[in-house]
């Protein structure tokens, strides 16, 4: 199409840009396999003898409980989001009543409340109900944090369902569960998958609630990373190894499901 820029040049340029953009990340992966002495060098070292010591060190510092907490909180809160969100999205799309747009507006507006504005009451409340430093507090908060966006996204997918088919199903006397399974589910399944993925990403990476409401028992992976800041500075190689391992689960899920992600997000925009 373009005569000035050959496709090959454009391809090379894209590759170069992409690699530059993620270079800090590639560098982090490289650093994770270094000894500490190789991590602090000027100029930075590209070639070195790789080691797995840093990863072992991360596990020695008690990484597993944090990883377990993160996994538990992420999965359970995502399941809750779907359990609460799917009926709501259904009600807001296929069976709408008066006040639908108000409800939708309300859900979205809660996303705009700065989370920091309510952190003190949350701390006090969770202390009163004995949920301080408890994974269930995080599950409750992450569910409410992700629910608005999830409802909004899923509603877009529900709007894709051909209404004629639902009406036809109703006339044939199918009840709601049957309708859901036979007609709605096939259409909206990819959308629900994309929504779940977004919830997983946001729950896994959430930092503010976790750092303020947990201590020894319920800390999630981001909190583990804070322990690497000390008065003597950071151990770069070990920090890189920890950062890599902490991010790896969502990275893998995100890579595998990136097509769903694009589709899910674009639906939100169009509908």
């Amino acid at each position, binding site marked *: 199409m373009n005569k000035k820029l050959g496709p090959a040049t454009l391809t090379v340029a894209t590759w170069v840009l992409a690699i530059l953009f993620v270079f800090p990340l590639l560098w982090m992966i490289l650093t994770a396999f270094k000894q500490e002495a190789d991590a602090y060098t000027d100029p930075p070292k590209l070639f070195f003898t790789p080691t797995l010591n840093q990863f072992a060190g991360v596990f020695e510092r008690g990484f597993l409980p944090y*990883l377990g907490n993160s996994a538990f909180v992420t999965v359970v809160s995502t399941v809750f989001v779907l359990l609460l969100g799917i009926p709501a999205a259904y009600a807001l799309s296929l069976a709408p009543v008066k006040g639908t747009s108000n409800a939708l507006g309300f859900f979205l507006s809660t996303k705009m409340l700065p989370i920091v504005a309510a952190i003190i009451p949350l*701390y006090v409340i969770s202390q009163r109900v004995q949920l301080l430093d408890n994974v269930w507090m995080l599950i409750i908060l992450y569910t409410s944090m992700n629910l608005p966006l999830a409802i909004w996204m899923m509603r877009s997918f529900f709007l894709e369902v051909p209404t004629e088919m639902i009406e036809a199903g109703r006339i044939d006397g199918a009840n709601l569960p049957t309708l859901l399974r036979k007609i709605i589910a096939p259409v909206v399944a990819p959308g629900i998958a994309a929504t779940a993925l977004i919830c997983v990403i946001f729950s896994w990476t959430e930092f503010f609630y976790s750092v303020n409401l947990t201590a*020894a028992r319920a800390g999630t992976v981001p909190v583990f990373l804070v322990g690497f800041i000390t008065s003597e500075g950071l151990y770069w190689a070990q920090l890189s190894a920890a950062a890599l391992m902490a991010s790896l689960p969502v990275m893998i899920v995100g890579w595998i499901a990136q097509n769903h992600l694009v589709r899910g997000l674009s639906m939100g925009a169009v509908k």
Partner: protein
Amino acid sequence: MRKTRLIPLILAAVLALTSCAGAGALGTSGRTLVVAIVSNPQMKDAIALSGQFEAANPGVKLKFVSLPENQARAKITASTATEGGEFDVVMISNYEAPQWAANGWLENLQPQIDADPAYDVADFIPSIRDSLSYKNSLYAVPFYGESSFLAYRKDLFEKAGLTMPAKPTWAQIADFAAKLDDKAAGVAGICLRGKPGWGESLAPFNTVLNTFGGQWFDQGWNAKLDSPEFKAAADFYVKLIREHGEVGASSSGFSECGTHYTQGQAAMWYDATVMAGTNEDPESSKVVGKSGYAPAPVERTQSSGWLYTWALAIPKAAKDKDAAWKFMAWMTDKAYVQKVGAAYGWNRVPPGVRNSTYQIPGYQEAAKAYAQPTLDGIADANQQKAMVNPVPYPGIQFLGIPEFQDLGTRVSQQLSAAIAGQISVDDALKQSQEYAQTVGNSYKEAR
């Protein structure tokens, strides 16, 4: 639909993970002590040695939450104040201990201490012990203690034909700083903290303020940040740093100054007595053996050094207080000092707490340049000796009132801005006076 196959896979992985990490997530076994501490070097040695405690006390497992100072303080304070009960042992300082004891948030440790003569409470340096006491009972046991003093480069003083007096005044120090300042060689006259934070720049500044006769509040809780004495002290401090201080002063704290001084980039350094350990450590310092140590400079008072200690306490809401005490006693008794000495060498021993530490020949040898000045500084650190006028709050380099963390941080930000030259000292003090008066008013109402 690839996702559908993915979900069971993920679920399986998660279940496997949570079951092996289950103990961390959902309910821990009865005898796990959760210890919240500040991640300073001496505390890390304690974590490393804590396996010995677990071996000696089967059935008690330790779990450390080790955080940088600011975060540790935030978490520990929030948890103790609301009786959150997340921690069995917390590390606090002499800023918190008396206040929290008065609030009824801490366990009185005196009965446990009295029941154990081998713990030898009389061995603690008296001023340190007093700073952690409330109504003659100890509510926290000291792990580490410090005052402030002045390190100076004997070689540079000799070259310039100067002598450090036994008890220097700030006027003399300013004069020395001007003479020793050598911008061409990259040597600053003096290194002083300019980094904001009530525990950073305000610590040295407040000792200067005290000896200049200034104060934050008078006995009627009127803020006095606009008084001539306060202004004189602030002008002096800011001017000294701006003219003869280190580069990047407004973001230099203890560690930054440490780097400057040990790399030979400053002729003098006024800071915490623990700095001597860094200065005399051949691994990190280029000026080993070149330093003399003088008491904190004065102006209108006898002494001016500060008093600070990191100590261990048990919050009222802690679940396993007996085990908690056992661990605290282990970490603060005489035997612990020996353990550190044997494992890591005498310069790694937590200083400034027990008189007996200073009797150990190995320690005396390792610390001969600074052991006595440290001990003298700590012993002399009290309000009677360090201040001109009476004040309604306890503390030397801090104000022992709960609002000071917040107030101090905000005032120190103004001070840093003045040191950076962004605003004038007058403007900084004007805004600070407003902050302080808000706090003062709340005490006026309360009376």
